[in-house]
Structure formats: C-alpha cells, structure tokens
C-alpha cells in the first residue's frame, strides 16, 4: 500500500483514516458523517487526478488497507474479491485456473474499488463489455456507515435495482465499495494481434468493414500521433487455435489489407495516452470526421496530440500534454473546440486526468443532461454532501 496522501490536488487532508476491516470502515464513516467531516475515499492513489479537485478534505479514508480476499468459483466463472485487491493480483489468481477478468490494466496497481469508481474504458470492452457489464454484484458502505449489497454471485439476476451500475463511474461520491462480484471468461487458447498502418483518409471504409465483419474480434484499436496522416490499426483476435488463422484471413479479405501478426500486444495497447488525457465519445461510424476534426484542431493550435480510439465502441482517448503548458485561455479554447466537435458527432468530451490547475479552471465534465436527477440521487445517498464534494459532474 502506498503511503497516505500528503496532498490531494493541492489540498492537505487534515487527517487520514486507515480502516483495516469493513467494520472499522463503517465506524469511521459513521463518526465522520456524524460530525459533518468532508471525506475523500482513496484506494491506491492511481487516479486521484481524475475529476475535479474536491472542495476540501477533512479526512482521507484509505481503503487500500482493507483485507484482500479473493474467492474464485472457477466452475461458475465468477469471482468475489474485496475492493482493495489490485487488478493484477486478481488476474494472477484467476490465471491459475485458466481464467481472467476481461478488463484491461490501463493503469498499473489500480484497486478493484478504484476501477469500479472510475470505470476506465479499454480495448477488451469491444469483445466482452465494460466494467459495468461484468460487475454482477457489489457490497458498499454508505456514508452513514450502513453496509449494503446489490446484485449477487449469479450472472443472471434481476431482483431489485442494479446499484452496481450506479456506483460504477461515480468517482466515490455515493458510497465506499468494499467488495465486488465479477463475471469471468476463460483465457483464450490463442491470441493474435494484427497490425497495419492506415491512412486517415481511408478510415471510413476500414471502420465500416471492421464493425460489420463477422470475424468477431475481441478488440479493435487505432493509435498514433495526429501530426501524421497515417495511424496504426491493431486488431485482437482470440479463440480456438484452429479458428484464429481462418478469421485473420477473413479479416484481411474484408479489408483488402494484410496484417503483421504478433502474439503480444503493441506497447501502447494497454495504456491511456499522455499525462493530460481527454476522453471523447462519438458515434461509431463518425470516426473519420472525428479524426479529421481533431487533426485540424491540433494543427491550428500546433499541439502534439496522441490518439487512441476503440473502434466499434466509440471511445477515443487523446493525450494532449500541451494543454497543461498552454495559457488557461488557449487550453480552454482547445477544449471548447474538441467539445463542440464531439457534441456534433453525438458524444461528449471530458478531461480524464490533468494537472490540478487545469481541472480547477475548467469543468472536466462539461454540461450534463439529467443533472438535476443526479443531484437528487446524490442527496439521497449523501445528504450532507460529504463524499468528495465537488469532484464529480456539476459540482456533485
């Protein structure tokens, strides 16, 4: 476990709590909320620079010290793990039984709790769904110390509301997630990464052929710096050893391209580009317009931009470290232009991570539909607004 937080986004928490059991966590939360303390939940501090800097923090609650437990029901392809377990630890344990959680390790040593709270989107989502889709049950402690559960250990289950979805991506503003139940998949017999360079002027037909192919890839990623007019396409095919080469040939036929193959992923595959990273969502087929638009913005402002798009999902990550060195006014202009472009393509643009000054000066999330309803949800779960106040959308 890393040492407790000294400063968070420029603020110094007045105290740190390190509960070593769920019961202790409950007491900590209960007492802190009783005295109206501003709280911040933390796991392994890998994504503390996500979201808006919280308004103030009286107590940082370190969840990384909670016991690590993994209960693997291999024959049911389900695992229960406590929130302090890291994704790597979990994968190691699962692999001994030939299984995995189909979630990419985008940021090393993330705890499962942190992963659920921030819901990063990686390549494997194309074939297996996002974290929200694999999370079948969740245990959490509310800010008043109440322990609650929703879902369960069976994959198919419609009893009651699906609170796991509500906690996923809530940035620790609703409750402290303490345990998760996850749906697993078997490790594939064979994996091949197929890579080829694609000129950005040819993206339209490539996207159409890939998303409408019957080859069923597990992931389709497009990557590269925006300065050049060519990007790298990499497709992951997984499955039975007999089937993979046939599927590769099928894809090459459909695209009229021939791939370089490798059994290991390109080095950029499992990461988020840049240290200032935007997440842009868009309609799947609008990728060519998105890339062209981004190219123009990068060119106009002379900023280096690294792009990584999950084709078929419509999630594009942009590494624009230059944003942090521009004047706030220019950075705001770039962000504004990217937001306008994303909105025109049906999606949105948020600042995923960036230096504190940038996330203080600009709203990382932009304008949000149904914000009033979200505020009402927050008011129900955390009426005093103690959990990470100000960190989430619309100042929640």
């Amino acid at each position, binding site marked *: 476990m890393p040492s407790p937080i000294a400063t968070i986004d420029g603020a110094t928490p007045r105290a740190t709590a390190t509960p070593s059991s769920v019961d202790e966590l409950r007491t900590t939360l209960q007492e802190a909320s009783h005295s109206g303390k501003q709280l911040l939940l933390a796991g392994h501090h890998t994504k503390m620079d996500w979201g808006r800097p919280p308004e103030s923090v009286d107590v940082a609650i370190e969840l990384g010290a909670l016991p690590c437990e993994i209960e693997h029901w291999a024959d049911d392809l389900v695992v229960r793990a406590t929130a302090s377990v890291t994704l790597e630890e979990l994968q190691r344990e699962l692999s001994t039984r030939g299984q995995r959680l189909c979630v990419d390790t985008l940021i090393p040593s993330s705890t499962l709790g942190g992963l659920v709270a921030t819901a990063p989107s990686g390549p494997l989502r194309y074939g297996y769904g996002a974290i929200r*889709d694999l999370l079948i049950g969740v245990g959490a402690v509310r800010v008043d110390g109440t322990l609650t559960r929703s879902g369960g250990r069976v994959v198919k289950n419609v009893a009651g509301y699906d609170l796991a979805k509500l906690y996923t991506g809530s940035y620790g503003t609703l409750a402290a997630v303490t345990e998760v139940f996850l749906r697993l998949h078997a490790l594939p017999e064979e994996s091949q990464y197929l890579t080829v360079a694609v000129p950005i002027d040819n993206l339209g037909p490539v996207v159409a052929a890939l998303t409408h192919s019957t080859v069923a890839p597990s992931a389709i990623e497009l990557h590269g710096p925006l300065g050049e007019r060519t990007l790298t396409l990499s497709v992951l095919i997984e499955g039975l050893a007999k089937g993979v080469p046939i599927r590769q040939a099928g894809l090459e036929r459909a695209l009229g391209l021939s791939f370089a193959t490798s059994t290991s992923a390109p080095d950029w595959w499992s990461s988020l580009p840049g240290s200032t990273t935007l997440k842009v969502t868009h309609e799947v087929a609008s990728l060519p317009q998105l890339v062209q638009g981004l190219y123009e913005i990068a060119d106009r402002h002379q900023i280096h931009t690294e792009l990584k798009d999950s084709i078929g999902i419509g999630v594009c990550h942009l590494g624009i470290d230059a944003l942090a060195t521009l004047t706030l006014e220019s950075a705001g202009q770039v962000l504004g232009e990217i937001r306008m472009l994303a909105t025109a393509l049906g999606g949105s643009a948020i600042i995923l991570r960036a230096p504190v000054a940038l996330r203080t000066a600009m709203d990382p999330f932009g304008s949000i539909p149904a914000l009033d309803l979200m505020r009402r949800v927050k008011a129900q779960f955390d009426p005093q607004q103690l959990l990470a106040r100000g960190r989430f959308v619309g100042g929640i």
Partner: protein
Amino acid sequence: MNNLASLLERLRLIFHEGTGLLTDPAMLRTFECDGLAHHRVIPAVVVLPTTAEQVEQTISICHDLGVPFVARGNGTGLSAGALPVAEGVVISLSRFRRIIEIDAPNMRAVVEPGVINLDLTKASVGDDLYYAPDPSSQQVCSIGGNVAENSGGAHCLKYGFTTHHITGLEVVTPDGELISLGAGKCVDAPGYDLLGAFIGSEGTLGVATKITTKLLKRPELVKTLIAAFDSTTSAGAAVSAIIASGILPAAVEMMDALAIEAAENAVHCGYPEGANTVLIVELDGPEGEVLAGMERVEAFCRECGAGELRIAADDEERALIWKGRKSAFAAIGTLSPDFIVQDGVIPRTSLPQVLAEIAELSRTSGIRVANVFHAGDGNLHPLVLFDERIAGDLETANAVSGAIIDLCIKYGGSITGEHGVGADKVSYMGKMFTEADLDTMQMVRCAFDVDNLSNPGKIFPTPRLCGEVPGRHHGVHPLVLSGEAELF
C-alpha cells in the same frame, strides 16, 4: 369534484374517449392482469398514448393529483409487474410503436417503447443486423417492457441481457419531466449511470418513451446441437465440461422428461425419442471458431453419456429444435390445466443438488414439476403443475413453488433471473436482501419518485418514506394520507 372526475376531465383534453382513453368497465377488464393471471386488479382508467408528449401530460396530471400510474407494454410479464392500481391509471404503450430509425453504420436503432421485440430484428435483417435479446415471448413482448424487466432470453449466456444492449433512453420521470438518460447512440454519458439504474426498474422510476438499442452483425455461422441424456445430472456434467473448456456457447438449454413430453404434444418438435433429458447447445460466430468448437461440444456430450445426438442440418431443423424449447411454457397446458412458471437462479454448479431437491419436493407433495432451464447460466424455470379444481392443489403448488425459490436463495442464487419481482415476488425480496439493501435501493426510487406514484406496490415489500429532499417540495405522502403509514 373528486379526484377521479378531475383526472378524467383533464385526460379527456388529451385523449379521445373510447380509443385513446378507456373507462368502460368491459374494456378496463382486459387490462386487469399481465401474463400472471392470478393477480388481478381493474384500473380506474386506461390511456393509450402514441406520443411522448401525451405520456408527459398524463404523468404530469397524475403527479398533480397524486394518482398512481402503471406503465404497460404488451402485458406478457410473468411477475404481475404491470398489475394495475385500482384507483390509478394504466398507461398502455402498445400503440406507441414506431421504429424511428435503423442506423446501420452506427449499429443502433431508435424505437418507441411499444415496438415488438422481434419486429426490430425483422426491420434490421436487410442490413444483416439483429437485436440480440430474445425472450421466448419475443413475438409479442414490447421493447419498453424488456427495458423495464431487463429481459433475457436463450442467447443471453453469450450476448447478455437487455441492459447490455441499450445505450440511450428518453424517459418521463414520475414528476412528469421528459429527460434523456444514457448517451444516445454513444456510450459513457458523463455522470451517474442512471440508464443502468432505470433498466430493470420495472416501471417504478418512470416511463420510457424512446429507446436507443445496439444492433449486432449476424454471425457468420450458427450450429445447433440437440443431445439426449439419461438424466439431468449427466446433461449437467456435459454443460460443465463445455463451459470449463472455455467455449462460450450462444445458448445452452435443458429440458427434462416432463417438459419434453409437453413440447412434443404441443408442437411435434421431434426431439430424440425416449430421452429423459435433452440438451440444446448453440454455437455462433466465425465459421472456423464454430466448427472447431462444435467438434468439442459433441465430444463432451458423448463423454458424458449422450445417447442420440444431432446437429441441425439447416435453418428449418434448427427452428424446430427451438420451437420445442420456446413453446415449452405454453405446451405445459397439454399436461396440466394450471401451472406456475418459476424463475429462480442458482450457481450453475449447484444444478445437480438443486434438481435433486426439487424432485424430492415434488415427490413428497405429489405436485408434478417440469423443468426447463437456461442451463448455461443456472436460470431455472420449473413449471409447477396443478389443477385448480382440486381442493388444496393450488395451495400445495404455491408451497412447492415457494420452496423452490427458497432453494435458490439457499444456494446463493436469486429469486428472479429475468421475469422480475413485480407484485408476485415482493415477499421474497426480504429473504434475499437485508432491510438496509432494500432501503438503499429505494433511495434511488426516492430520487426519481418522491410520492411513490410510478407502479407502486412492485419490487419492494414496504415503501420507503422519502422525507424532504433539499430543494424539493411535495405534498403529503399518499401513504400518510391514506393512513397506511406515518411520518416520523
């Protein structure tokens, strides 16, 4: 003017009496129940909107007057989810059913809530796409109903449930506001995943008026195998072997002897003769993958003692195999005048123990139980047979059905895998969840529906009093007004 009179007066400004607005008792009676016909309540009024605006206006009126409302799709639900409230309005969405758009390049469709599930797939065939969730009722149930129930289907083992296939919703909230949830044709709208919370909320958080769904590319190849086994245990062992090997079939379905008999009687599906149990395994995907996978599936079945085993040679043979399975519920009518369809879930590996316990329940009670289930994910549909004309039979059947649900809870499963809680299973929620769990879920309800007007009496055994939410004001809680609850 009493509440009903002013309700009608205002609704008449929006709907034509007799077509869009029903008050005739004979007409109202046709809405008294869903597919679970032993729960019946006649509503005060039924409206049949064809636009979001009409839904919005209706709910605003209900909100103003404190009148409860219940959304209804096509009434095929099996948990009394669309059961009316006697003094309330039923909002029937069956005529609100245009397919607004098939967006093939983006692999999305936009539909109104009353669109029939199968019609969406039919409309996408030209683009070689389809809508994946396929409940057995897909020829009649509505997509709005599917959203509310988070419906599954035979192929959800591989493709997931409704919640995995919806990216955006337009919803009228219980206070009459039209809002959009989710990201339209995109994913990951910033903010809380209210879309995820709404799907499966059984009409208790408002009414969906527009739905954006994913569409999938049709697989290159589909292969369907049917194999006969001498017991559910050996068929279960085959399922375990297949899944442990890493193959993810599109569907794995099992039927026991009684269920087979019923299906044969009803639709002559030509299942292997004399089989004690049949297993249906369907693989779909790229040709290379499916062919290699099917070889292994066949081998596993043989190793586990399969007798007759066939792989459908063409679409017609496959359709016949599925016809037997999909008609199983209705077919039970050939064996018994009355039956209860259960919908419990267990960890798949507990199948042998649970089936043995169900058999024991059946033996000791003298009530026959036919078993049809989604064996890949442990979703059981025991059909509990009885004859209402025989004194005490219904009570015994209910007891057996309840005991099966208790078994599911005992083995760490769920009281419902796809049919929902509705009014029917309200009393089991407290067995599966703690007070605190239910209270937390109802906090979401309070955020959406302070007055508990949207499909009240469903899912939760006792309504939560929402209290004052900062910045919001509302009248006296209807439960307080009616004397059913006190504020403290």
